[in-house]
């Protein structure tokens, strides 16, 4: 009964308070997977949403819009334009939902994390484990949606294979930040702020129309939003317009994930270990 596992994030671990990471966050995945066996229908429903949008907007609205300029200016069909946007948005939505509503409930109501902290697990195990679960779910949805895109002929380049790991990174970053934000929330009312942050991003961060429709100042605002970077990343990969600029978008999410994780781990510790 010792702390067997060598920590997998040594640098980060040394920055964290003693005892906050036992290297056993996969046990939280086991727990979530066990619990999910009874709620798989709810989980599956997450597949459907982006597919509905794709059909309604891509096929319906697309017949009016025709084509739009792709990332390199070459016109692509409206469906091919919004599909990567929907992929990015679904990675965001799934991760944010899991890491805010679900985590808040466990934190404040079911006292689940209190029980876990009476074992050798630390707050960082919990943060990583919960984010990891959000990630698995996000990965499942992204694979499903990518399959739909492939079948609909919306994937035009082998680079599209990389859209899956990219979606996982995006989900990780959103889950980490979502969890960090949740640790500051006091009541369910505060969740209106989550909707307030997520919904406008979903609508305006170039998911449904290109950046060029905005005046310059608004373009600058949109370019700061995380979902914008996710959409750019996905659109580049699924249409095969790959350039070094994509690495910049990747870096954005790596930084976002690390900050979110560090804040979430610390805040969980401060909240639970009083």
């Amino acid at each position, binding site marked *: *009964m010792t702390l067997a596992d060598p920590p997998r994030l040594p640098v980060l671990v040394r920055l964290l308070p003693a*005892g906050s990471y036992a290297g*056993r966050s996969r046990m939280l995945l086991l727990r979530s997977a066990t619990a999910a066996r009874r709620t798989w229908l709810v989980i599956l429903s997450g597949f459907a949403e982006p597919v509905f949008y794709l059909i309604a907007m891509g096929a319906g609205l697309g017949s009016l819009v025709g084509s739009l300029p792709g990332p390199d200016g070459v016109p692509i069909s409206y469906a091919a334009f919004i599909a990567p946007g929907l992929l990015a948005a679904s990675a965001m939505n799934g991760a944010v939902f899991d890491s805010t509503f679900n985590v808040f409930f466990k934190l404040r109501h079911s006292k*689940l994390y209190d029980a876990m902290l009476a074992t050798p697990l*630390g707050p960082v195990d919990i943060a990583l484990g919960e984010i990891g679960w959000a990630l698995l779910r996000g990965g499942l949805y992204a694979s499903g949606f990518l399959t739909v895109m492939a079948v609909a002929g919306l994937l035009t380049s082998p680079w599209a294979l990389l859209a899956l790991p990219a979606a996982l990174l995006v989900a990780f970053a959103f889950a980490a930040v979502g969890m960090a934000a949740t640790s500051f929330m006091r009541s369910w009312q505060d969740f209106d702020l989550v909707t307030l942050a997520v919904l406008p991003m979903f609508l305006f961060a170039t998911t449904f129309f290109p950046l060029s429709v905005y005046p310059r100042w608004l373009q600058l605002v949109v370019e700061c939003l995380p979902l914008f970077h996710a959409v750019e990343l996905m659109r580049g990969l699924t249409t095969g317009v790959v350039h070094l600029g994509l690495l910049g978008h990747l870096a954005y999410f790596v930084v976002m994930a690390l900050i979110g994780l560090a804040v979430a781990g610390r805040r969980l510790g401060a909240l639970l270990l009083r």
Partner: protein
Amino acid sequence: MADGPVQARGLRKRFGEFEAVRGIDVDVAQGEVFGFLGPNGAGKSSTMRMIACVSPRSDGTLQVLGLDPDLQGPRIRARIGVVPQQDNLDNELTVRENLEIYGRYFGLSRRHVKARAAELLEFAQLTERADDAVEPLSGGMKRRLTIARSLVNDPELLLLDEPTTGLDPQARHLLWERLYQLKRRGVTQIITTHYMDEAEQLCDRLVVMDGGLIVAEGTPAELIRRWAGREVVELRFLPERRPSVAELEPHVDRVEELPDRVLLYTSDGEAAQSAVHRAGLRPESALVRRSTLEDVFLRLTGRTLVD
């Protein structure tokens, strides 16, 4: 008692401005059952949480199993079992999964936790409910499951915060018997309780806490001898016939007035009862009994154990 499993000196816990534990010294010896008694808000749970390494101390020193909770929290927690005051079972898992998954948090193998869960279900008499959800279990069943869960890692030190609150008498006696078995196997136990019979029955030694301080310490017998005397005469009077304390005091060592009765502390209950009678006082009812921890508690904290 130099190297007992728990050693605290000047231990304090502050929540903002408020100080819940105000400098206590505790020494728990290997293999003993140690009790914390005290009225609501005395600081028992706050102390237990510090020992369980889930609440950092504000001041003082603390060693649990020879280690410092501030530095070695996870290593200590790997070797202790905790029953919190409020059940925090995992409502998304079944009864059995609650034990198995919890065991996995300790890094125990799948095979090991499977076998251990089966034993513990038997221990908690929940085998028939093993594959049910936790939510619909009765309060007592949940409590039993929480206690079973605390044993999944074969702890050397068991922390039980009001373990039997909500249990029916039969389940309480069963638990006492199980705790006695654990004691015989050398498991050190720390218990808080509001039931004096439980404290007398289980605890080798106990402390009474009040307002964040320890106000008395000893074996149950020592505490009774020191603070309550040998016998108690319980008198009930009609309100209009109730005598003043001054009228009763000459006949006994000490008088304690409760809303519904008067307690007389004395070395000889029968003699005190006759003396009261000779003085012309006529109680509705009179009962001579041995002193208990409840009397100690009342003397020290001015309150009854279960209020």
